[in-house]
């Protein structure tokens, strides 16, 4: 588990690749998650679940609703970690 910005981005990319069964190389920070073949709402929620487990945080359904890229998801994680550390 990493908590620096680059590490979070890298680890989320790996989680997305695994959960959506796509090569990690095909994902960029700004890739639209909804555009990935096979990415339905259930699978995307599984991505969120894995992210929550990885950093031991709880993301609000409301916060992840408008998240559409790896970079945005990383942003939500950084915020949650700051809240947790505070």
């Amino acid at each position, binding site marked *: 588990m990493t908590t620096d910005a680059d590490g979070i981005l890298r680890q989320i990319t790996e989680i997305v690749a695994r959960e959506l069964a796509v090569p990690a190389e095909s994902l960029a920070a700004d890739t639209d998650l909804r555009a990935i073949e096979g990415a339905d*709402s259930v699978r995307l929620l599984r991505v969120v679940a894995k992210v929550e487990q990885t950093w031991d945080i709880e993301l609000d359904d409301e916060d992840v609703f408008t998240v*559409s890229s790896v970079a945005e998801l990383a942003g939500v994680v950084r915020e949650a970690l700051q809240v947790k550390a505070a």
Partner: protein
Amino acid sequence: MRGTTLPGALDEAAATGPDIAVSFPSSAERLTLTALAARTTALARALVAEGVAPGERIGVFSRNNADFMTAVIAVGRAGAAACPLPLPTSAGDLAGYAARIAAVTSAAGVGRVLVGAGADGLTRRLAPVLPALRFDGIAGLVRSARDGVALPDVSPSDLAIVQFTSGSTAVPKGVVLTHRNVVHGTAAIADGIGLGVGDHGATWLPLYHDMGLFGALSAILTAVPMTIWSPSTFIKDPASWLRSFAEIGATVAPSPNFGYDALLAAVDPAEVAGLDLRRWRVALNGAEPVSPVTVQRFGAHFAPAGFAPEAMFPVYGMAEATLAVTFPPLGRPPVTTWVDRDRLARDGVAVPAPAGDAGARGLVGVGRPVRGMRLRIVDGRRRAVPDGTVGEIEIAGDAVTAGYLTAGGPPTALEADPAGERWLPTGDLGFLAAGELHVSGRRKEMIIVRGVNYYPEDAEALVRDAPGVYRRRCVAVADTDDSGAGAESLTVIAETTLDDAADRIRLAADLRVAVGSALGLAEVSVRLVAPDALPRTSSGKFRRAEARDLARQ
């Protein structure tokens, strides 16, 4: 005997089981029926004081929590009708979601929306783009309630709930349900599964979904303990949900077929033996086609945990019936009828075929009409057909809706036949075999994925104006499942003048993404055709049925 209105039925349940509780583990809330009834009375008083008019349609926008349940019943107590609004799923786009909420609230004539705990952040984002709606927090209203505000007399024929079966923007259709419908519908469910002392209901389905709402109400109005999780609790970790479900000793839980698949995938065989599912008496499986494969695997996989074969309970229902249409007999394991696939598809007849044969299609029997429900199978001229012949399923009864609220038009009501019976055409196709219903397909142009209905019109509206589509010409068709594997999808067929291969690949991908991301649906494919290839009528309308053949070429 229960009350004849939704709040009346709750008051009776609270008198029968004052300390019976409704629990919401995802929000750590627990209310006794007495407390729930009191809270609905307080909210109803506040609504009346706020000037809510009799028959007014009021949106309910909340997570699966105490506020949701309070609001749905309180609105009825205030003489108005509750319209549950869908919450967004993950990775939605705000504009598309706001458009769906706008379509639904406009069709239902909703001006006021009650906001539950945990939905305020979303409301802050939605409110500026939906200026026609007024959002009021439920907690604040409850606090403002004063005793002594007179509540109106509510009649069984008054509207209680307007239930939307999809978030479609193109064809929003609100099913109107009266208090009589709700009371009869929930009683029929309780009767069909023998709900009573010793039972404990459980659900993770969204309460804005008909199966979530009426399933939960069936237990509550029967004074049976009910536990309600948020859908994301289940979706994120189905295995831990199942452990909690087993720990509280729940006996009844509903799910669309995909939920049973999710549990199969999430719980290792090694973990199964550690679970105790002996108390799980009824596992309702409905809201989307029931797969014979899922039913068989689920029973075998969870048998070591004490899951009884007869607990799997494949059902047929819809919001229009205040949920339940047919239930199998209690205590009978699921039955799969095998018929000749070609004869069924080509001639509309169910001819027995060897189980598991390559040319055979297995259909899970969904039982017989529940108490108070009448059902018939009819041909294109609405004449009843014999057993074993496929036709449209029609229903009638005290739990069946009187009609729909649609965008821009008067409410559509069902017409009475010469015998005075108001038959509702369901749009579903099926046949009876030995009195038992088998659902074999769909007449209506729609697909169901994970219990959610999707309409081709919405896909068309999303891509019609995309660059590369020739003269806004595109048609979407629904590919429904006839394999038993549960694979339903939408195919978008668009005309284009592009002929460079790379351009065509890019256009197809763009269209798929546009539809998939706005609808939250992965099951979308795109087919590009030459200009003028889509068949049209003399008035220029697309012929959807013929277009479907293009999609399959």
